[in-house]
């Protein structure tokens, strides 16, 4: 009887965990190394959106982004000079760096890193 109760309790806990709102999409990256320090919202980089339009190799080979969240130091100067995001976000292929709010759209206080499923930074959560 006691065992049955325990089992039901575990089942209820499991259901509640599954029902908790899932956060963000697979591979959303938060960039907040410098953003909030400089008075703008953190950047949300959506991998999925870019993946529909560009193969991984475009950013991770041509543009030079390392494949590890946190290992790329991206500054606005670089972007304005056409490096990193600025290779496309130049007003021609995609919106230009004057459209601050479209990239700097994150909640205040977010931690930098990859979101939405398992992480690439060390023991994942499976």
């Amino acid at each position, binding site marked *: 009887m006691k065992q049955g109760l325990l089992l*039901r309790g575990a089942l*209820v806990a*499991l*259901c*509640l965990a*599954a*029902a*908790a*709102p*899932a*956060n*963000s*999409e*697979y*591979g*959303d990256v*938060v960039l907040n190394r410098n953003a909030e320090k400089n008075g703008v*919202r953190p950047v*949300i980089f*959506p*991998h*999925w*959106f870019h*993946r*529909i*339009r*560009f*193969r*991984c*190799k*475009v950013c*991770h*080979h*041509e*543009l030079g982004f390392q*494949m*590890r969240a946190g290992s790329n130091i991206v500054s606005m100067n670089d972007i304005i000079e056409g490096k990193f995001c600025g*290779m*496309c976000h130049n007003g021609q*292929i995609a919106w230009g760096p004057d459209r601050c*709010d*479209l990239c*700097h*759209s*994150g*909640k*205040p206080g*977010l931690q930098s890193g*990859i*979101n*939405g*499923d*398992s*992480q*690439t*930074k*060390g*023991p*994942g959560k*499976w």
Partner: protein
Amino acid sequence: MKRLRWSVLTALLVLVAAVAWAATRGQPIATDGLHDPTSPAVGMLQEPAEAFGSLPEDTVGNRVRWMRALDEGLITPRTNIQPETKVNLRTTEVLLKNTGEMPMVRFPHRQHTAWLDCSNCHDHLFAREAGRTRINMFAILAGEKCGVCHGAVAFPLTECLRCHSAPRGSPEALAFGGTIVREAAR
């Protein structure tokens, strides 16, 4: 009576969980937990649900079969920005035999080079010579080797048999004819 109440409660909770799970494909940007709901970007950025709507569904990750979407021409992502960039493709398959009691791994270059450049994996993660690199699940689980992508942006490590797809003695394994590299079947 008490038993019945429990059963109803349990069934209800399972239903709630199932509905929540079914709704996770394409979280609205305003409530995804990352975007600031008061940001001017909300309402201007493309919603995942709209983008994923026509793409084949998966059970894991962000629930999109990305490779199938590419193969079926449902998405046509650019391969390069600068016209002079060389787009490298490769079609050989590599058999990874030291998999203990698990089926062997058949690594297909075609699917990987459709997305990635050689330099994304070689030589810092894997030697170019097949069979030279020691790979183990601990490294992969820690986000190294295959784990750089699988689990973060490619299907996760819960999907054992998608990689461990060549049981010893199976047609997939025998097709290698005792070698570990072969040209992919057309």
